[in-house]
C-alpha cells in the first residue's frame, strides 16, 4: 500500500469503472484487490509486512470487530490475519467481479 491515499474514498468509482470500497465493506466470502489505504506509516508498514499490501488479493472471512481476512500469496497459498475494524475501515480494495474475470494469478 502506498500510504495516504486520499483519492481512495469509500465506494468511489475508479477510472476503470470499478468500485473502491473499504475492506470492511466487503461481504463475508467476497474477495478484492487492495488498492490503497489511509493508515499511518507504522500501521501501513506492519500490514504491508504481513502481506496486506497494494495489489494483494484478499478474501473477507469474518466481518466484525475484529475482522478476519485471508491474504492470498503468489503461489495460490494464503494466510489469515485478524484485523481490528478501524484498520479494516482504512484499507481499500477493488471488489472482484462476480465472474472472477478480473482475478490475477
Amino acid at each position, binding site marked *: 500500500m502506498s500510504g495516504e491515499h486520499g483519492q481512495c474514498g469509500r465506494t468511489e468509482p475508479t477510472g476503470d469503472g470499478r468500485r473502491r470500497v473499504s475492506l470492511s465493506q466487503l461481504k463475508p466470502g467476497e474477495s478484492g484487490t487492495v488498492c490503497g489505504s489511509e493508515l499511518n506509516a*507504522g*500501521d501501513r*508498514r*506492519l*500490514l*504491508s*509486512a*504481513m*502481506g*496486506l*499490501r497494494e495489489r494483494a488479493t484478499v478474501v473477507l*472471512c*469474518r466481518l*466484525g*470487530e*475484529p475482522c*478476519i481476512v*485471508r*491474504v492470498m*500469496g*503468489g*503461489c*495460490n*497459498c*494464503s*494466510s*489469515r*490475519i*485478524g*484485523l*481490528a475494524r*478501524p*484498520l479494516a475501515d482504512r484499507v481499500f480494495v477493488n471488489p472482484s467481479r462476480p465472474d472472477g474475470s478480473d482475478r490475477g*494469478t
Partner: protein
Amino acid sequence: MLPAATPAHARGGDPLPSAGLVTRVALIGNPNTGKTTVFNRLSGLRHKTSNFPGTTQEARLGFLDCGARTVELIDLPGVYSLELDQTEAEVCRSVLAGQIAPRGEPIAAPDAVCVVIDSTNPSRGLVLLGETLRRRLPTLVALNMSDLARRAGMEIDEIRLSETLGCPVIRCSARSGEGLEALRGAMGRASIPIMTPPGDEESLVRWAESVESSVFRVSVEDWARGERLTDRVDRGLTHPIAGVLAFGVIMTGLFWSIFSLASYPMDWIESVFGLLGSVVKSVLPAGVLRDLLADGVVAGIAGVVVFLPQICLLFFLISLLEDTGYLARAAFVMDRVLRPFGLPGHSFVPLLSSHACALPGIMAARAVPDRRERLATILVAPFVTCSARLPVYVLVTGLLFPGEPMKASLAFVGAYALGIAAAMGSALLARRTILRGPARPMALELPTYKWPSVQTALLTTYDRALVFLKKAGTNILAICIALWWLSAFPHVAPPAEATAMRERALAAGPDEASELNATADRLERSHASAESFMGRIGRTVQPVFAPLGYDWQLTVGVMASFAAREVFVSTMAVVVAGEEDAESEGVIDRVATAKRSDGVTPVFTRATCWSLLVYYVLAMQCLPTLAVTAREAGGVRWALLQLAWMSGVAYLAALAVYQVARAAGVA
C-alpha cells in the same frame, strides 16, 4: 545498499570460520514460522536465556556441534520485517549489524544468518529473506513445516531457490525432526549470496513474488480444501458467542489444571521439604545454625520450588495451545473485551493464570507484543485473587459470617470481583498516564491449525522453569532467609508468667503439668513473636494501620505476610494464640476471640474484618511477585511502582471501608 557488518569470525582478522572455532549463527524468521521450535530441536537442552542489553527482549543462545565446529545459535525475536518501527525489529537490525549481542556475549556481527521460512506461507518469509540478504552476511535458508506443505499438495523447488540465491536451502520440519540433520550440517556452509535483492519496498515485494511463483507451487483446489476446514473451525472458535463459550471452556480447563492438578506436586514438595526441615532439626544441635538451615534455607528453597508445578503446568499447556494455533484465536476473541481497559486480547491468559499464582501469570505476559501493553499487564496482574489469598479469605469471611456459608461465599465472590475491577481500573489508568501511547491495533496472524508437539512444549516448559529458578528463585530465597531472621531474632527471655507456670508444673500432677507446660509454650511463642524484630516493627508501624482498625497483633500479621499472604493465618495463630500449627483444633476460635492489649476489645471486629478483607484483596503482599516483576518488566522501578500503587490503593480502600463501616454503626 547496506554496509556489510563485521562478522564474529573476523574478530582479530580471522579468516572464514574454520574447525575448532565458535561460529555464531543468528536465527531469524517471521512469527509463527516455527523458528523457536527449530532452535529448540537443534540446541536441545544446551541453551541459556538472557536478554539483549538495554531492552526487555529475551535473548536465547543455543549451542550445537557441527562436526569439529561449535555453533552458537541466537534465537532472534520473530519479525515480519526488519524495517518496522518495533523493538523486535530494532533488536534484529542491531544484532545483524554487530551492534549488540546477548548480554555477556562479545559484541560482533553473526558469522551467518539462518532465515526460517514457513513453507506453507512463503510470501512474507521471502520478503524478510530479501531484507536479510541485503545485509550481505553468509546466509542459509530453512524451509520449515515442509511436511505440512507436502500434505497440502505443495511442490517446492528448493534447488532452484538455492541456485537463485547462491546459499544453501534446506527443507525441514522442526516438529517431526525431518531435515534437521541436514540443517545442522549446513550451518557451517552458509555463504554470502550471489545476488542482492532490490532495496525499495515495492521492488523487494515484486522480487519476493517472482521467487515465490518460481519455487513454490500448489493447486488452487488442494489449497482450498485445507482452507475450508480452517474456515469451519474458525467460524466456531471466533464466533462472538460460541467463540467466547469455547474460550470459557478451554480456559476453565487450563485454570483448573493449574489450580487443581498442580496442588498434588505442590503438596509433595511441601511434605518433602517439611521432612527435610525435621531431619535437619533432629540431626543438628539446637542453635542458630540449625534454625537458619531448617527455618531459613530449607523453608526458603521450599518457598521457591513450591511454585514450580504451577509454572511448569501453565507453560506446558500454553505451549500446546499455542502450537495448535488456538492461542491466537483466543487473543482474537478477548480483544474486544479487554480493549476498553487499554489491554489487548493477549493479556487474558496472563490475567487468568494470575488467579492461580501471579508468578506464572506475569511470566506469561511475554506473549503480549506491545511493550506498554505488556507492562500494564504485568503491573496489574497481581490484583486478581491468587490462591495464596484464599486462606486469608477463608479466615476473614468465616469471622464475618460464622455459620452462614451462603453469605460467606458471596463475600468470597465479592473479593474476586474487587480484584478484577482493581486490575482493570489500574490498567486503564496506567494506559492513560505513565504507559500512555497509541494502542497497537490488532493485526494478528491466525496460524493454521495443527497438532501440537509435546516435545516442543516440554522444552519450553524446561526453559521457563530454568529461568524462574535461576533469576527469580535466588531473590526469593534471599527474601525468605531475611524474613526468617526478622521473625526469629532477637532471642528473648521467656515471660515471667510462663516461667511461673513451668515452676507450678513441676509440683503438679501429670495431667495438670502437661496442660501448664502447653500453656507456657504458647505464652513463650507469643512473647518471642512479639519481641522479635518483626514484632517490634509491627508495634512501631501500628499507628499507620490504626485508622484501618488494626491493633499491633494484626499489624504484625500484616507485616509478616508482606513476603507471602498465606503467612498471615499462621502468624496470627502464633501471635494471638501461641500455636505453631494454624490447623490445630480451636486455633481459629482463639484467633476469632482474641482480645487487644486492653483485654476487652476484640482484635477482629466486623468493621476490622471488612477492612482486612479489602486490604488483602488489593495489597501487594508477595515479594516473589515483585522479584518476577522486576525481571520481566526490565527494572526494579516497575516492581517498586507496583508495590507503591497496590499498597496505596489497598490502604485507602481499607481505610474507607473501616471508617464507613464504623460510621454506619458496624461493630
